[in-house]
């Protein structure tokens, strides 16, 4: 079974600084997707960024970028120019291509942004 591990239960960053959240995963598949989701307090989970495993180029979305290392099964999220609104739980998730294509989540990292 696929597993997703987030080794940082909590992280903090100063406003306007850069922070990197770590994620590793375990799979025997070659075709899959990886995601970072953000869950603000008392609000719904929203997709931050996604990466297709077959693409070598790292995905970017404005201030958010990933470092995808397929061989190492590593998928980290970098947040640049951190803003107070970035404070949330961040979940790394894996989705296999084929089958039910369900999302498998890590346990999350709580990000605090200090003014």
């Amino acid at each position, binding site marked *: 079974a696929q597993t*997703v591990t987030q080794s940082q239960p909590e992280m903090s960053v100063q406003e306007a600084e850069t922070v990197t959240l770590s994620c590793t995963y375990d799979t025997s598949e070659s075709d899959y997707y990886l995601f970072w*989701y953000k869950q603000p307090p*008392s*609000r*719904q*989970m*929203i*997709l931050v960024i*996604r990466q297709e495993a077959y693409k070598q180029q790292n995905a970017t979305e404005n201030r958010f970028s990933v470092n995808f290392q397929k061989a190492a099964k590593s998928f980290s999220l970098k947040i640049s120019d951190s803003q107070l609104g970035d404070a949330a739980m961040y*979940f790394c*998730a894996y989705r296999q*291509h084929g*089958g*039910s*294509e*369900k*999302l*498998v*989540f*890590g*346990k*999350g990292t709580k990000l605090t942004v200090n003014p």
Partner: protein
Amino acid sequence: EAEVAQSPRYKITEKSQAVAFWCDPISGHATLYWYRQILGQGPELLVQFQDESVVDDSQLPKDRFSAERLKGVDSTLKIQPAELGDSAMYLCASSLGLRREAFFGQGTRLTVV
């Protein structure tokens, strides 16, 4: 902006009672998911529907949990009888299809006392 609607937002129930949650996906979304998120953990899939058919319910405790999506639109998740360990956030999500982005509702926080 279209959203996944869930009700109630909060539910407190006594152990051994029945409880039900409702989810209305974004219009046109064929795939619907129910996830359970225990405090401090990531969400875990309970059941997934494609239209009115169950695609994956391998992690659904079928002795006490049931889910239906009779007309392929809204869905109900039921627990009977509720146990203390069922206290969690129950999240509903929907997507246009299996390989499309999933959109989440705000969830129902269940407390079993």
